[in-house]
């Protein structure tokens, strides 16, 4: 089996948002939407800090679909539009999506974004990978782990473009892969473990 995932080195993450825009470009994401966001943990302001000056700390936390093994979004989808594919990725069949937004409510990571209106792009044209399907009004969308690239053995665009080399892509079912080794490291952790969704995306320092 294959279980594709991304590991994120929180120390090497510069908080630069290149991943957010690389994803936006690659996947033709319309105005006002992102599949990948970079949060400053426990802060309302980007580049904020936890603590009281000068005893401060800061963690940038890139968040997109966690491609959970026990995905809450998949469980609640009434049409089977959200599915887990043979590569271990959580994907959306846009033709089957009826726009009920049950998945959006179920996802504990706020990782899904909905086309409330017909998508608008201020460029006036579609951009990115020509293989990426179009989404229309009333359809949910989210990180596909760059399905079109990873199907062909390429790494996701966010990994390809990361200036800090903070993102590692690989197969968790291959015990010798770098990502599997990192998964076994002492600082490896997932978000909201208590929710029981078993995210495949994980973080480490």
């Amino acid at each position, binding site marked *: 089996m294959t279980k594709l995932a991304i590991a994120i080195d929180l*120390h090497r993450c*510069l*908080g*630069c*948002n*290149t991943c*957010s*825009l690389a994803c*936006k*470009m690659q996947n033709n994401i*319309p*105005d*006002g*939407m*992102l599949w990948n*966001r970079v*949060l400053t943990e426990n*802060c*309302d*302001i*980007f*580049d*904020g*800090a*936890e*603590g009281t*000056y*000068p005893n*401060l700390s*800061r963690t940038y936390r890139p*968040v997109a679909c966690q491609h959970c093994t026990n995905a809450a979004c998949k469980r609640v989808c009434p049409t089977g539009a959200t599915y887990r594919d043979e590569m271990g990725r959580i994907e959306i069949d846009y033709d089957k999506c009826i726009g009920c937004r049950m998945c959006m*409510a179920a996802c*504990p*990571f*706020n990782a899904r*974004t*909905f086309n*409330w*209106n017909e998508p*608008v*792009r*201020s*460029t*006036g*044209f579609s*951009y*990115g990978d*020509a*293989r990426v399907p179009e989404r229309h009004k009333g359809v949910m969308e989210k990180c596909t782990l760059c399905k*079109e*690239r990873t*199907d*062909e*053995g390429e790494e996701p*665009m966010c990994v390809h*473009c990361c*200036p*800090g*080399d903070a993102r590692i892509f690989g197969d968790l079912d291959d015990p010798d892969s770098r990502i599997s080794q990192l998964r076994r490291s002492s600082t490896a952790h997932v978000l*909201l473990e208590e929710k029981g969704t078993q995210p495949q995306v994980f973080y480490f320092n």
Partner: protein
Amino acid sequence: MTKSIARTALTRRGFLKTAAAGMAGAGLSGLTLTGCAATTPGAEDTSGDTLAYTYHNEHCLCNCMFQCTVRDGKLVKIQPRPNEDHRYQNVCLKGISEIQNIYGEARIQQPMKRVGERGSGEFEAISWDEAFQMCADAFKACDETYGEGHIWMQFSTEAQQRFAPLLPSLVKAQTGIPPLNGYDMGQGNGQNQAFAWSGMFAQNTIWEWPMARTVLMVNCNVVETGMMWSRGMLDAQEAGTKIIVVDPRFSPTAAKADEWVPLTAGTDPALFMGMIHHILENDLYDREHVIAHTALPHLIDAATGTTVGTSREVQDPETGETSTVVDPYVWDAKSNTFKPYNQEGVEPELEGTFKVNGVECVTQFTKLKNDYAGYTLEWAEGITGTPAAQIAQVAEEYAKGPSIICNGVGGIDKFQASDIAGHCYALIASLTGNYGKRGTGLGIYCYHTSLYEAALGGWPLPEEYHVTAPMGFYDVVQKSDDVHAAMFFGDIPTQKAANWAKTEEWLNSLDFVALADIYKSSVMDYVDLVLPVCSKLECPDSVGGVKNANGYILQNQKVLDPLFESKSDFYIERGIAEAMGLGDLMPKDGEEYARAILTSDDPQIAGFTLEKLTEANGALKLLGSEDELGPEVGFEYHTPTGKQEPYYENMLKWGQAFPMWEEPNETYADNPLREKYPLQFGQARTRFRVHSAYSGAGWIQDLYEPHIELNPVDAAERGLSDGDQVEAFNDRGSFTTKLRVNNAIRPGSAFMAESTYRQYMDGTMMQNVTNDQLSERGYDLIFGPMIPYNDTLIEIKKVGA
């Protein structure tokens, strides 16, 4: 401004609606393409795609090389250009944002002339022919009325990217060229003398950092301002190097450091003086190094501070001028008398008071100890607010070495005492043996990543055509009365001078002002003629430029034809030159100019041609540049004695032979002005812009909007809340923006990412409040005075309060 779509917290349930946005793709028909057919593997239908390779803004400090995909005449993808050396395979959010930015509403789309009053923003579209003729007529009129040499012309790196400008020489303009920037070079002003180098870029590179035990980063926020080189910092950390960041703000780089040293803005010299005092008091200096490799044992007149030694006449090989050089004496321990410093077998005393021909002398080192007697840790804590124990600990770690001081060009560089800070770095490095050997050094590292640079050719003009550079732009605004017409490529006036009211007054005194720019920058409303420049991704020719960066020759290949009615800066220059009857003096097109640049005897680029660059997808590594570290910097210098010379005798008249404490001009602790304006206002670069560039980039606006930041304590004292619309003000003026409350900001200060366009700040500008008081000492320094932008006091209140 659209609501931020990126900040939605992890578990918040705000279902975000798609923001309405207008289409901005008008005028895109008829585009033609060059470049090769895309060969992306896999199932993507790339049959209609072309790939082109180019470089991005130099001003980001990373010189990223791009692989651009064009489909149906539109730029649809920007990725890092594949490179065997991963360090130079880069793109960041600003690069990717160009997909939207170049088509965005912020673009200037056609030539326009002013029809209302200056400042009214009322323009009408005109043809390029009319625009070129307007410029030509205005420049000729200026020459006829005042004589030649009364036009000011200056280029920013955003609006001028590719070919070295020729128009300023053709119109015999005054121009602002380095070193008279007024910024970025303040620390260099203080570092250059000690080791006889420029004082700017370190003589080794960031790739040597893993060989250092400690790297002290001062006024350097590489995680935002030289993002790609953060990898070098992180790799060094992983190799065991301790990174210490000195910054008033808990910057993104401070957050990545092993240790953060917070301090009051503008007090960096005091921090270093405390460190140096601690090193001297506790014998932490490298005595062997100091005696062998520095001038600190040399004798000076105890009363005057001048060197005592033998005089000789020397002739400048270039100018032929003669001057007197004094070869210093040292006190020889063996013979107990003075001897020439360079006499064989001499054993110099490091400390002491001696008589030389009846004159009481001391060693430079003894003077240093005397001068620094008061700079105790407690004194330094009082000035900087940094705990004495931390200053001592950092001094001890630095002294242990090998250590590097990495400075950027912000922070203290925007205070008058920036040269004193740089001088401190040179002094502490000399004292502790942290200059010359592997894993040591100082200067700018996070930009200058290669020791290799090729000498390129250029486009020769007849001798009579040349610029003059009598002063920096800051002085033109303040002091010059002989400029009567101006042309700017980019928003020079709002960037290169403080205190906007004075700049505006100067602009209004001119007979004619033209602006060539890509985006609708803040200065647009104040000019008579606006010309649309195309982005670096657009070009009418197959090649828009070639340059040397990061140890490569890079080619700016055509990605798109110029959008809207824009032209490249080269063709704007050429159009004006033609209207003045001077067009024949310029290259006929970009290809001819590029070939001239590649015409060079430098063996590092032997055989490099446009064709070879194209074959290599736009980048060729310099020949012979494989050894990335290069030789050790070593212990031989072009200083008068050949040694490290941290004692600057030529600065005696300013009391700065050794770096001595000087209060900031405005933000000093006891300034009575603080009663009205208690907050120090600091500006610095952010990852979301390059100075003002990208202010109008829609994708980046989604991530970040202009705002001022205050510590929660200061916000609460003023009854202000996060998100309030506020006015920042002082006696010079005011601006309005949004307030964000941030723990990362030092209490007593306000912070704002520098420079954005006034249309995003209710028509106001940060420069309305900034300090323009220049230091007279600066005119005695190699890079001139620095504009103290961050040495500014303000108060903040809610708009309308």
